[in-house]
């Protein structure tokens, strides 16, 4: 696939080249003048009470709590590169009628109106310069509506919109709904979303809201979710069900994502940098985990935000008789000198792989989740190499790292058998 990688890089280079050509082609055009557009006036600030409405494109909704004494006070500033501002006008009926608004030398202006419930106001704003140039009145044209919904309903609607954008894999649209004061790491969230969308497909999340709580400008939504994703790598469908919460804060033209709890509903690949606490009810519940290699597994949610230590690699593979597995190169190989162990068929494993320094059977253990740590020193030769479905084994590799693996299923006599494993990469025997 190196050819394809080369193709992708070439494609990206081509895109960049086309972009450069686009700019050079039109370099002489009027728009290529940083900051010196045509003499049209522009609005550089626009506030509806406390809400920044400069970038609102379609609609702006206010709940009764957003009003200031039952009114909306609109404040803004108009600027022009050539000449001066000569007139500012506003309309609430899509430009059928305009009201002139006084402005200061600096282009500052203000006006107010008292909206009625559920009445659509088709807001427009325009300015005229002293040189006769008019601003484009469609730029600040949107529908304003005072809705009966209280802040609770608006927050709930914003939560639904976040879910929709996530399920539609719209990273840019989702990040537009993340607060600038996001408590986790918003840069990490952006990267984690990229990973989610690379390795998750057909995402379905069905939340049932358990309760909502508010303080100041924030709403926290506690919910039980049922989630299903398809692993892009394997095509497998995976599900989980757990309790978690998100917190939204009023910012700009709506509620924005402010805080995430573990288990994560968004940005699943990086809980350590995104979740700021763990939902108590979900501790011990199996939740989806996405590792940096794109493997999707379900693991119990721990007491820490990271469901599994970040240095633990998880995975699974299938072995036919006569083949072994290398945990260091993550390949199925026929050469025992470069693998950790091999499957012989006939219900037995070979324990003299060149990648192994020591190992042993973990007697009485049937699940990888049950293993919190393994002995730091293990015998070079395992005591019992009988292959048993459900049995868990521990290995110390030649690089000083530790592995636990379990025979998950398959035919022990003829193969193939399926092995699931965890590889602790930080050099400690601790798997918790």
């Amino acid at each position: 696939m190196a050819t394809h990688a080369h193709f992708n890089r070439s494609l990206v280079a081509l895109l960049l080249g086309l972009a450069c050509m686009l700019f050079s082609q039109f370099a002489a055009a009027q728009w290529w003048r940083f900051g010196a557009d045509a003499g049209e006036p522009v609005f550089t600030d626009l506030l509806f009470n406390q809400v920044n409405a400069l970038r609102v494109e379609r609609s702006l909704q206010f709940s009764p709590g957003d009003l200031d004494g039952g009114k909306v006070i609109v404040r803004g500033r108009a600027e022009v590169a050539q000449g001066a501002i000569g007139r500012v006008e506003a309309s609430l009926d899509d430009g059928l009628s305009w009201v002139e608004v006084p402005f200061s030398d600096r282009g500052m202006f203000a006006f107010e109106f008292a909206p009625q419930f559920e009445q659509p106001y088709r807001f427009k704003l325009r300015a005229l310069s002293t040189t006769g140039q008019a601003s484009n009145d469609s730029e600040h044209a949107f529908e304003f509506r005072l809705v009966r919904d209280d802040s609770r309903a608006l927050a709930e609607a914003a939560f639904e919109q976040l879910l929709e954008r996530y399920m539609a894999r719209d990273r840019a649209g989702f990040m537009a709904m993340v607060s600038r004061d996001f408590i986790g790491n918003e840069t990490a969230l952006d990267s984690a979303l990229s990973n989610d969308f690379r390795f998750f497909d057909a995402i379905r999340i069905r939340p049932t809201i358990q309760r909502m709580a508010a303080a100041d400008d924030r709403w926290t939504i506690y919910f039980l979710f049922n989630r299903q994703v398809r692993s892009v790598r394997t095509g497998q469908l995976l599900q989980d069900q757990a309790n978690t919460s998100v917190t939204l804060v009023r910012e700009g033209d709506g509620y924005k994502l402010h805080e995430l709890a573990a288990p994560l509903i968004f940005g699943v690949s990086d809980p350590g940098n995104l979740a700021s606490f763990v939902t108590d009810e979900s501790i011990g519940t199996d939740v989806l985990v996405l590792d940096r290699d794109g493997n999707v597994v379900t693991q119990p949610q721990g007491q820490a935000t990271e469901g599994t230590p970040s240095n633990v690699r998880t995975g699974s593979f299938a072995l036919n008789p006569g083949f072994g597995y290398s945990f260091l190169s993550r390949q199925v190989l026929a050469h025992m000198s470069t693998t950790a162990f091999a499957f012989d068929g006939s219900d037995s494993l070979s324990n003299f792989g060149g990648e192994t320094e020591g190992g042993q059977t973990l007697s009485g253990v049937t699940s990888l989740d049950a293993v919190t740590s393994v002995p730091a020193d293990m015998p070079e030769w395992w005591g019992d190499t009988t292959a048993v479905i459900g049995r868990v084994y521990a290995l110390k590799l030649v690089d000083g790292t530790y592995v636990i693996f379990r025979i998950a299923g398959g035919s022990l006599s003829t193969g193939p058998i399926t092995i699931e494993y965890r590889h602790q990469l930080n050099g400690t025997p601790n798997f918790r």
Partner: protein
Amino acid sequence: MKLRPRTFAVLLAALSGGAGAQPAETAATAETVPPRTGLIVPLTPPDTLSAPVAPKGPAFGEFSFTTEETESSLEVTLRSMFESHHISGPGRAASILEPGRHWLHDLELNARHSLGDNWTTEFNAILRYTDSRRHDPQTKSLQRLQLVASDQVNHLTLGDYYATLSQYSLNRAIKGIGYQRNIGEASYVRFVAGAFDARWNHLLNQVEDEPIDRHVTGLRAQTAGDNYRIGINLVSAWDRDNDPARTTEDTYRQILPAFDWEYRADSGLRLSGEHAQAKTRRQTAAGVRENLSGSAHRLNMDGTLGKLRLRGRAERVSPDFYTMGGGAALDRLRTYVRGDYRLGTVWSVYGAYDWFRNNLDGQLAATTRTSIPEVGVNARGLFDRRSLTFATSLRQRRVDTGAPQRREQVSERLYVSLADRFDQVSVRGEVEALLNTRKDTSPRQSNDDLLYRLVIDSRHLIAGGRYDLRPYLSLEHQEVEDPGSGRMVRTDGARFDLRLLTQGHLSYGLNLEHRSTENRVPGAEDTRLRRYALNLDSQPALLRGGTLRAEIGHAEYRFGDAAKNYRERYVRVLTDIPFNFGN
């Protein structure tokens, strides 16, 4: 008797005979307000655009009382959901849906009563019934129970309460008591005490999934002026060590003082921060006790210097800073800065740099350092088209994990977006490329991913604005190179939504989605998914201000191995019926 607006709306809607009636407030106040075009009242131009200081006192809880409230009122709302799922095919066990017919009912009560001139009381409760474990672990449950009493100075909440002191100290819903006494307009003292139990059933020990009992007591004092705010917080929290719900979990007991502040300079610069110290005793299930002491500090900056807007954040949270009720990413040292520079009315550029690391006390065998530089250009109004926007960014994410298993992962992301609007039709195209390289023991050292997306969105008012038609089309193609095998996984997706809104609070929706994946990874298989759904939203007069939503859908999952195929058919009906009483 004074009619509540909502009650009046219901009466008027009923008299006028249906959902198509105009909103009650519009009709009721039509004689007292000027025509729509005359609503704009010009004001004296302001000197500053800084947001005015809100004249109201400090916010508390989620309830605010106004003089418009009646002496007594009772609102009862019944929210119901019925769903019927039919799943067929050999792989039906993989479906997310629960087969059969299921119900969910939430009955919400909200009663208000005024005591004299100042005091107001409010009672809230939500009772739930469901026969589906997918919605709630209990068939019958009390979701909410709350009693609030307040006047202009005092606020008292019993029952469900959102205990919020500061980010590091306490920010969690509890069941217990919350009391706040306002001192002037911007100063107050807040006291909270209770349990973190998420469900009332937990307090009654009725459910199997009950977590360990966790209790908290907290106090916050805040004072603020025109340009500053200071808060002092003290939290004590503890787990019940001998809780029968405990299995292998550690238990904690802690004292956490915290100090938070904010300062706003006249220039628009905003600085804020918080500093906390946690002393925690951790006890393992085996009874081993360990004392932990950790601190957390954060500093935020946001300001504008002419055409430059700067944002910055620095945070250090030590590995042993454990907060039982607050929130923090433990064991992190982070700095983040971003600057946006407006070159003019069309162009703006930005640069950002994020750097963070863990293993602050050397407690881990390996330290992971992450750096993410990013630059970008945005334009709005290209080619004299105000709606034409262009955005591009280049981000590099480098994750470096030290010995003993040294690894380095570098991911470069190039993003280009172009959007425009042609009358009522908006078009947005996106290309995102991820070029990943790594240095570790992986069999492959590089893999690239590409994503293309085209979104067409429009809105059409027809029949003189009586109908609002909103079609939406999204096309997507993604190529992911499997990091393990280097083989390609190609996904194509298409989604079409159509919404028709009428003036009578009636809307119809159609959703179609198709996704197919061609997977060349050994052992993996191709998959295909088709979904469609029809839905209806309405506010019929029969429900007296309530809402009705009905949805019917079909989904079909197909795999390379036909034994995994399955189909889903579902019907879902949701109603929201309010009953209001007042005097």
